[in-house]
């Protein structure tokens, strides 16, 4: 399979990465090189094979329902580009 320029733009938008028109052909070439490389997987017979979900066979541990985190609003916003009164600020989102 290979991608066309429109697909490159669609993927870039899905990934929220601005891509200039001049970058598209280059990206398209790189993505197609990668897709060509992974293409060889299609020759593997995977019939009846379970996809790997966890590398180590073990039960997932669970946490008891206790409140032992939070109350660190200063830390939460410490690295934020824009805040006011512990709120994060973003350009207005029109819903």
């Amino acid at each position, binding site marked *: 399979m290979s991608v066309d320029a429109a697909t490159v733009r669609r993927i870039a938008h899905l990934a929220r990465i601005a891509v200039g028109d001049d970058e598209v052909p280059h990206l398209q070439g790189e993505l197609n090189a990668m897709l060509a490389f992974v293409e060889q997987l299609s020759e593997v017979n995977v019939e009846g094979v379970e996809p790997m979900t966890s590398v180590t066979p*073990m039960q997932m541990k669970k946490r008891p*329902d206790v409140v*032992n*985190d939070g109350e660190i*609003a200063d830390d*939460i916003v410490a690295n934020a580009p824009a805040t006011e009164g512990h709120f*994060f600020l*973003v350009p207005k989102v029109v819903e």
Partner: protein
Amino acid sequence: MSVATHKLIKGATGDWEMVIGMEIHAQVTSKSKLFSGASTEFGGEPNTHVSLVDAAMPGMLPVINEECVRQAVRTGLGLNARINLRSVFDRKNYFYPDLPQGYQISQYKSPIVGEGEVLVELEGGRSVTVGVERLHLEQDPGKMLHDRSPSLSFIDFNRCGVALMEIVSKPDIRDAEQAKAYVTKLRSILRYLGTCDGDMEKGNLRADVNVSVRRPGGPLGTRCEIKNMNSIAFMGQAIEYEARRQIEIIEDGGAIEQETRRFDPNKGETQSMRSKEEAHDYRYFPDPDLLPLEFGQDFVDGLKAALPELPDQKKARFIAAFGLSPYDASVLVAERESAEFYETVLAKLADRARDGKMAANWVINELFGRLNKEGRDITGSPVTASQLAAIVDLIGEGTISGKIAKDLFEIVWQEGGDPRALVEARGMKQVTDLSAIEKVVDDIIAANPDKAAQVRDKPQALGWFVGQVMKSSGGKANPQVVNDLLKSKLGI
């Protein structure tokens, strides 16, 4: 489901039927969040109930809250649903400022709960069964405030990461009444289970409603989704509006476009939010930070054994044990609090078998009636279950008459106090002393010879005599005694 149970809509070209399915988001009752130890408490200063995990700081990892798993399984059991001993958490990827990770941890292909069903009762003793497709656990996003600045949105992640159960119904609902009754019933079950507080005003229970229309029994139409309904009344309006909107379009030769809509309660109409060309591509895949969620059947069995009695079971028991009418039993079990109140009254009664039904009447007619009139709910009742049980006891044992009991109820409502002591202190006791009543009966027969003569031919006139005797005794004479006495004196 028979066609008779639901309403069809008359269009210009004939009848139309609605097909409705619902996705309910119910906030799980737990102290801490689904994947972090931050508090789930409502409100709070911005970003205080937020951990580094909730804010998706680099290198943070989710750890699942066992209580949320228990609650989901308990809910599944309450919906008579299949519990999946192995389920998988997936990432639903999309960018939005209220979603710090850039993905919501949810369950996609393998949810924790599979198919189940809910029995939904309608007016007039009708009922429908609505199928549940699945229930899965997922994270609530944060909250955005748009009214604080003309150019900026403010974000608070206090709610972010709180556990939600998304309960997806099958498209089994056929009109607004059924839809409202389904949500009401589901909410009641969740509240009985204690797995969600059902507080719709706080958004702790909200519904996305999928509506389409078709010719009765015909092929399915294209659906529109009305997002985030958090009022049952508005939901009814929104469905009605949406169905009519779709019918108009189709009858005008147009086609329905699949889209997401919102309901504007002020205008009473649904409005388009985003259309299909902007549809998301969520790129679901199993969350590699979390192993599959697995537990044994013994875990499920343990939870099942400890489940509280749910409304359907409770209703059946009330009918069987106390002879309540199905309607009365439904009224009592509709809300967990009223059922609990009635059960407490039952527990305090001296003779439950004898007076259980009378107690139900008192709870429904006197207490609920009075509460409704004053716009109060059962948790704020001035008459306690003990007081009401005492009043019913007094009637049942023959100490007071039903009429006096109403006066007594009023005194207890207004002033409080021990009903038995009040009856004693205020001389409200029923007179059962034969000689005292006999005198009154004799006097009245003597004063009305013509009526006494009539009554031998028209036994129904006995009622007039009973009334007279009761009146002159100030309601305190025991009606049964009066009845018996009159019959023997009048020779009938």
